[in-house]
């Protein structure tokens, strides 16, 4: 097995890097720029039962070292994704992770059941942390019991491993992580965006039509590292780490903190070739630091060493 390969439930990755959900649509745009097979995996945009039109614009605003977004889970809906988006990805042999969202438990369950049956889908990412929709999304992610209940329901219908994507906008993320592990989650995805706002000095009003948005980018990296470090000490399921990854050292920092793989979001907007470029820099940097294999640096509790 190669030095930079990592193995997680449902995901045999040739390298630890996947694009973060919502920053890569369903792959077609970046597929024009480079061969998506270079990616360790592909994580696509959130899918809901019905088509979602999303929020009004402006949907993004810049912040120091980061950005706010309030897309509002816009997506073409389950049917369209099944018929058009996922089939297009069949030409690639890299693992596919589908991010699913909903406005009720039933929504999530329906999307999970149908998406998890698709041949080229290797795992689900259960999005209980979208800060940009009133119902659903984050409300499922801020209460341990609710999150656990949803995880259990989704697990019961899913044919593939389920990664629960946690919200950082909570007092005690470890409590929620333990609850979803208890409920059967195969892995965790963290972190989603921090709630934030920018105000337009000319109007005195929030820049985003949605008022608040999700903060992403380098600015949130230390928050992600801390949460992954704390959670990885307390759970034995693997973590897909994300939140501000921008340079190759960040990937190593996330893995040392406890992530078994990583996702890159905002950095794709800074440089559309960010994912392949970071992957290409990995081995040289590992040599400089005297790191033999990536999986060996994952700073996780002995319990889950096995799955790595």
């Amino acid at each position, binding site marked *: 097995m190669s030095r930079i390969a990592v193995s997680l439930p449902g995901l045999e990755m040739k390298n630890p890097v996947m694009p973060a959900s919502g*920053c*890569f*649509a369903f792959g077609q745009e970046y597929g024009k720029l480079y061969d998506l097979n270079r990616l360790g995996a592909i994580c696509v*945009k959130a899918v809901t039962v019905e088509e979602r039109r999303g929020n009004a614009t402006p*949907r993004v605003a810049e912040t120091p070292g*980061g950005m706010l*977004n309030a897309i509002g889970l816009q997506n073409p809906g389950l049917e369209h994704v099944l018929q058009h988006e996922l089939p297009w990805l069949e030409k690639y042999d890299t693992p596919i992770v589908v991010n699913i969202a909903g406005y009720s438990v039933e929504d999530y369950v329906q999307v999970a059941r149908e998406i998890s049956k698709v041949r080229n889908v290797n795992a689900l990412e259960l999005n209980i942390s979208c800060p940009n929709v009133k119902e659903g999304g984050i409300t499922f992610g801020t209460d341990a019991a609710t999150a656990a209940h949803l995880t259990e329901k989704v697990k019961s219908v899913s044919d593939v491993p389920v990664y629960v994507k946690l919200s950082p906008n909570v007092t005690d993320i470890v409590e929620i992580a333990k609850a979803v592990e208890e409920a059967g989650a195969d892995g965790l995805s963290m972190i989603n965006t921090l709630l934030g706002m920018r105000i337009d000095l000319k109007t005195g009003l929030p820049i985003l039509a949605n008022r608040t948005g999700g903060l992403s980018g380098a600015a949130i990296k230390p928050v992600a590292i801390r949460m992954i470090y704390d959670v990885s000490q307390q759970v034995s399921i693997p973590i897909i780490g994300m939140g501000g990854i921008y340079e190759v050292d960040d990937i190593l920092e996330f893995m040392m903190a406890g992530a078994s793989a990583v996702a890159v979001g905002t950095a794709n907007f800074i440089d559309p070739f960010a994912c392949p470029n970071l992957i290409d820099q990995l081995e040289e940097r590992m040599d400089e630091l005297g790191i033999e294999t990536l999986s060996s640096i994952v700073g996780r509790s002995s319990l889950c060493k096995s799955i790595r």
Partner: protein
Amino acid sequence: MIMDNMTITKQTEIAPKIFRIEVRGPLSKEMKNPGQFVNLRISKGIDPTLRRPISICDVDLENEMLTMIYRVEGKGTKLLSEKIVGEEVNVLGPLGQGFPVEAANQGNTCVLVGGGVGIPPLYYLGKQLVAMGVRVITILGFRTANDVFLEEEFASLGEVIITTEDGSQGIKGFVTDALKKLDGYDLYYTCGPKPMLRAVEQVATSPGYISLEERMGCGVGACLACVCDLKERDAETGKAYAKICTDGPVFLAGEVVL
């Protein structure tokens, strides 16, 4: 679309806070049509984080040069205006669908209607139209005489009508006040602030094309930051919206909700 570290060959302030910048590099050869834009990375680091979309104002294929004109609005354009000749700027582009010149035919009369920093992309368009044997009339709107730029350049392409809100030059009022007075034109192309686009769409007596602006994330169609609603669902894709960065920034007047 490619990414290219282009070298700044010229940068001048042509009106208060309005800068003309020229950059050289192979990317310029990728230009498909006027109205396309590029996404500029302002600094090497993460501050600022997002790229800045700027329209192509002119292209010099032989010398591999692109000309852009931008207004210093905030942090990014301020930093851009401080860059000096010889410095490199990372450019992603050309992006989006520009103005369809082929929509006009030899002998037609086309009206170009531009407001503020919506004016630049119309220049490269006008040059191509004139080359096709199209008669071009240009209406340029500004706040005041002091802000006027590109007047001579457009004059070299045909009649130019200037409007200023304070009447300090040309017609007092808005571009639509000038457009109302024209008729018998076959097609119009317009770019500027949304309120202006709405007004132009209403006043115009011919079909036309409008260029939109929106805050962007990726610039390549992947993040859905820049969508606008379509008046009707797209027949083939079934989509009810369009992405300004890839489906636009130019749309057929009436196609999208302004």
